């Protein structure tokens, strides 16, 4: 909880409130949800699909605002997050809370209206899981915080799938599993370059609690699990030849980079501050972090292109 009492908000812009919604996370949610929606069987109504994905984006934004309300004390102590609207004093914590609660309710109700109860229930669960289970509980109590909490970020394609079809099958669960398994190596690569900030803020990230060496080993294990898992949609028929190529090349790149991280000294000297000015020994971790974003994007983009271009039924 925050005890920040800022002289705030009278000159706050709409952009400050929009920043509370974590637009970069929202864009990932919209993209993965769009792929889930397009890949789901059936024609689907474009208006209802648009409304469902918008509801998902707003729901993700709402949980971002709740996260920024609750974590303002942590954010204020970390260089990467100190300029966020609440710790910088541009928006009052209560306003972030109010916006988060209001948009949460609005997004779930809109999902009921535009789609169905299953999609709305999944969206409500996702918001609750991110805002309460991850933010209020896991983040401050266990180094497995981003592993378990990653489920919230992984669910959007399944919610979109459910919004279109009213049910869930193995394929959307595979998409969720891929994002879920992708999150630890992605986030821990960043955490290796930011461990000093996490330690200062009292966040028990894996590099802080178990050291850089264990983190590097865990990154490699998850990358080794992720690569074959990301190929699984080819076996179920969800992914076609283009997806298969991306999964093979991308998976190999992730494993190679994870091996390079494992053999490096990334994170040995605790560091914080600007992530893109990392010291030389942390560069392999930074490289993996950047490539992991491109990898996930490429996997989902391949599914989308195959459907839109008619390369795969």
């Amino acid at each position, binding site marked *: 909880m925050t005890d920040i009492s800022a002289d705030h908000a*009278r*000159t*706050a*812009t*709409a952009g400050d*409130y929009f920043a509370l919604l974590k637009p970069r996370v929202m864009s990932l949610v919209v993209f993965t949800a769009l792929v889930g929606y397009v890949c789901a069987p059936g024609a689907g*109504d474009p*208006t*209802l699909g648009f*409304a469902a994905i*918008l509801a998902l984006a707003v729901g993700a934004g709402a949980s971002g605002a709740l996260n920024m309300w609750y974590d303002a004390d942590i954010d204020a102590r970390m260089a990467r997050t100190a300029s966020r609207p609440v710790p910088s004093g541009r928006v009052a914590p209560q306003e972030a809370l109010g916006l988060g609660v209001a948009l949460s309710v*609005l997004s779930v109700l*809109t999902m009921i*209206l*535009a789609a169905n109860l299953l999609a709305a229930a999944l969206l409500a669960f996702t918001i609750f899981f991110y805002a309460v289970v991850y933010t209020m509980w896991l983040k401050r109590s266990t180094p497995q915080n981003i592993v378990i909490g990653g489920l919230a970020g992984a669910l959007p394609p399944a919610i979109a799938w459910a919004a279109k079809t009213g049910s869930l099958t193995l394929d959307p669960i595979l998409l969720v599993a891929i994002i879920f398994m992708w999150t630890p190596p992605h986030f821990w690569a960043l955490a290796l370059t930011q461990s000093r900030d996490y330690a200062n803020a009292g966040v028990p990230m894996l590099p802080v609690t178990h050291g850089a060496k264990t983190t590097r080993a865990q990154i490699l294990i998850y990358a080794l699990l992720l690569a074959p898992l990301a190929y699984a949609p080819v076996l179920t028929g969800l992914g076609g030849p283009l997806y298969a190529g991306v999964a093979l090349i991308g998976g190999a790149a992730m494993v190679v980079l994870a091996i390079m991280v494992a053999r490096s000294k990334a994170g040995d000297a605790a560091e914080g501050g600007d992530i893109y000015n990392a010291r030389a020994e942390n560069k392999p971790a930074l490289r993996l972090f950047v490539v992991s974003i491109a990898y996930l994007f490429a996997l989902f983009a391949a599914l989308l292109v195959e459907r839109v271009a008619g390369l795969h039924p």
Partner: protein
Amino acid sequence: MTEPQEASRDVVKLTPEEEAARKKRNVWIALGLFAFMVLVFFVTLAKMKAGVLDRPL
């Protein structure tokens, strides 16, 4: 005769910048509400197209 009540209240005086910022925020709230209204309208149309009203009266 008593003084008007307003005189004894703590009235927050906004600076011109603060007033301008409030006005902009209000415009964005209005746009957001209007967009939501439009969304509900089109979702309703789409639902009706799907046959929600297609039943014996």
